[in-house]
């Protein structure tokens, strides 16, 4: 019996897998997870989303163990980083698949080639795409698309240079449907080797092993970042902010909610039945913006626009008041658009002054949203009768106090 994946008909596969598992031990589970299938005549080594590698034995015959092993690692990274499923959301059209694959290749190669990946031919690196290292395939793709559009010759961007999985003799190799999500003639009718849920488990297992190997110190930073992001997914701050704001507004206002505090107006008509009445206080919302020198205008504008959009969706846009605050507080302004907010401050910061100023506004705001970089003293407790939602802007913002709901907005 041969172990599935030991690749009938691909010479030197065992040695190649051993080389790969020895060189990149933290990827070993993934390397052995892919099943290698000989596919004479396809002229490439390609991968499909079901964890199957299609290899043309004629092509790989002349490769060393290190070269074939590197191609294996490269393709497993396509699967681990989900380049196939990511192509659709990135807006890749079928005629742009080549550009996308080159972008995906650059995302993989930029830190694995320095770590010892020895692909046949010239592997695609970010500098070939005119980009700095360490970016995502989506970023490389947008840059690459712009360049081919400038030239007006779609396709020229990837004609020169060998590619991806590696090219013998300057030819172009196709990484397959696992890299761009578009089916290939050889794989479209095949059931997956790993059903999607097992593929997800394997992906998590590899991520855990990558993080566990961190101490050894030779794991490329890009791979560590991938593993950390996969295991502790970042919540989109827009979603988190929306949820907190909706909750704060709902808690304080009860928006359209029922209450037995007051009998229903229809109660008289139905005799012995106790009906609740509807209550719908319209909550007032105040936004305190940090305008001190340390703030980034872009982030502030982005988060303010997000707050404004949300309140609009909740039907509260008209009641929005905005205060600019550094150590002193500007007058409250009712605004109808984020563009109308002037950042007047500068100098030091004290958000406590801003919160205090918002709390004495009449009508009293039920929800106070504070947008700050966090470098500020805070009052000891929440203002009476108001809920506070803090948007912490920037990657290094210190924590907000416990009495406020905090959302981190990364730059």
């Amino acid at each position, binding site marked *: 019996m041969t172990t599935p994946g*030991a690749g009938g008909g691909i010479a030197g596969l065992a040695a190649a897998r*051993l080389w790969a598992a*020895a060189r990149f031990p933290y990827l*070993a589970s993934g390397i*052995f997870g892919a099943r290698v299938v000989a596919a004479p005549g396809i002229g490439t080594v390609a991968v499909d989303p079901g964890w199957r590698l299609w290899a043309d034995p004629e092509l790989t015959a002349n490769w060393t163990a290190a070269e074939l092993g590197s191609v294996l690692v490269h393709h497993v990274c396509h699967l681990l980083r989900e380049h196939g499923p990511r192509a659709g959301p990135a807006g890749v059209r079928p005629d742009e698949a080549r550009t996308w694959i080159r972008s995906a290749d650059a995302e993989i190669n930029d830190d694995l080639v320095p770590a010892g990946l020895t692909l046949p031919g010239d592997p695609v690196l970010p500098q070939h795409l005119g980009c700095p290292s360490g970016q995502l395939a989506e970023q490389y793709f947008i840059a690459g698309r712009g360049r081919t559009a400038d030239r007006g010759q779609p396709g020229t961007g990837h004609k020169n240079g060998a590619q991806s999985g590696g090219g013998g003799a300057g030819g172009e190799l196709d990484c397959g449907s696992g890299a761009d999500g578009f089916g290939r003639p050889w794989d479209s009718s095949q059931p997956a080797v790993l059903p999607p*849920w097992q593929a997800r488990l394997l992906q998590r297992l590899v991520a855990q092993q990558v993080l566990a190997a961190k101490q050894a110190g030779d794991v490329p930073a890009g791979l560590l970042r991938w593993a950390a992001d996969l295991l502790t997914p970042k919540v989109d701050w827009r979603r988190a902010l929306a949820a907190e704001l*909706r*909750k704060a507004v709902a808690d304080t206002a*009860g928006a359209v909610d029922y*209450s037995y505090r007051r009998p229903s107006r229809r109660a008289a008509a139905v005799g012995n039945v106790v009906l609740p009445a509807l209550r719908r206080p319209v909550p007032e919302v105040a936004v305190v913006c940090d305008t001190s020198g340390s703030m980034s205008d872009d982030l502030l504008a982005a988060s303010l626009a997000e707050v404004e959009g949300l309140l609009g969706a909740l039907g509260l846009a008209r009641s929005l008041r905005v205060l600019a605050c550094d150590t002193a507080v500007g007058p409250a302004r009712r605004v109808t658009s984020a563009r109308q907010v002037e950042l007047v401050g500068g100098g030091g910061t004290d958000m406590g002054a801003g919160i205090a100023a918002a709390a004495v506004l009449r009508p009293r705001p039920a929800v106070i949203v504070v947008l700050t970089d966090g470098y500020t003293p805070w009052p000891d407790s929440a203002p009476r009768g108001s809920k506070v939602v803090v948007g912490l802007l920037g990657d290094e913002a210190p924590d907000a106090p416990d009495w406020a709901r905090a959302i981190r907005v990364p730059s």
Partner: protein
Amino acid sequence: MADGGRAARQRAAAEALGVAVAARVPVLLWGAPGTGKTSAIRAMARAMDWPCETVIASIREPSDFAGLPVVIGQDVRFAPPVWARRLAEAGHGLLFLDELSTAPPAVQAALLRVVLERVVGDLELPPNVAVVAAANPPEQAADGWDLSAPLANRLCHLPWDIDPLAVADGLAGGFPAPQVPALPERWEAEQHLALALVAAFLHARPALASAPPTDAASAGRGWPSPRTWEMAARLWAASGAAGVSGEARSALVVGSVGDGAGAEFLAWLMEMDLPDPEAVLADPSSFRLPKRADRAYAAVAAVAAVVEADPTPQRWQAGWQVLGLAANSAPDVAAVAARVLARCRPDGVALPAEVRLFAPVLRDAGLLHS
């Protein structure tokens, strides 16, 4: 191909829905408005020939679920609405709560007992009433609320991600109804096994027994608690008895206890299938190499790791025997573990004969330095 994953997810969600209904676990479908959640559920009820009561939660009052308080003499009775009476009289049926996420908080609170205990006002619905709900993600519904954490914790959450091709076929030829599998008699007994599995897992990972969500956005989905673990065990047993796909089973577990905890549990289950490395060392000839190469790697790597942790001469030699058995069918997999064993050779122990098995492949890989 691009939509292959989506079509599979959609099929798995329909399968999972059927299992949840068969196991009488309350289930909630999440999907954008207009993606056929309602019609799928109604078609399922029709196919079973069960009565289906649709209640749109967002336009109801709390009293429709908690019972209408009626003053009769000295007492206040909580009168159940007529849809509950109809279900109680039929003895079985589908209670379909639509638009759950747009229901105001007071209504969601009133739903707590309905969803899990099937109690409406003073009336208890028969055990053969299955609760199914549908909701739009808050960011897609104009006036959506996030589901409250206690309500979310009573439901198995399934994503309803529509497959465009299925829509095209459905428009032409009608939408297929999700099948509710007939569970064999013995499935309730299998539930004890599933509960024991969950208990063993929680012994190993106690932090996952109860992890209430910390932010409002994730509070509205599945999260681990003793209740949802029990739900997951029930669904695991039912889905095993019904023989549905692994994709559907994993959707049910993840839908009950949430993404992270669910994936940890599934991974732990797969690890349970691997041979115990200490038992293998005690009797190397009993070792059977798993067929899938990554599982084979996990098995031999585990053996090498326990030897490395305590390399007595006897364990070290037993380790080589195991690798010798693996070397025939998977020389590369075994060779990775052989490199680990070679590093921890106890003093004064002669190299075993198995070492030579790995020389060719190590040389081919350029890893043998003479």
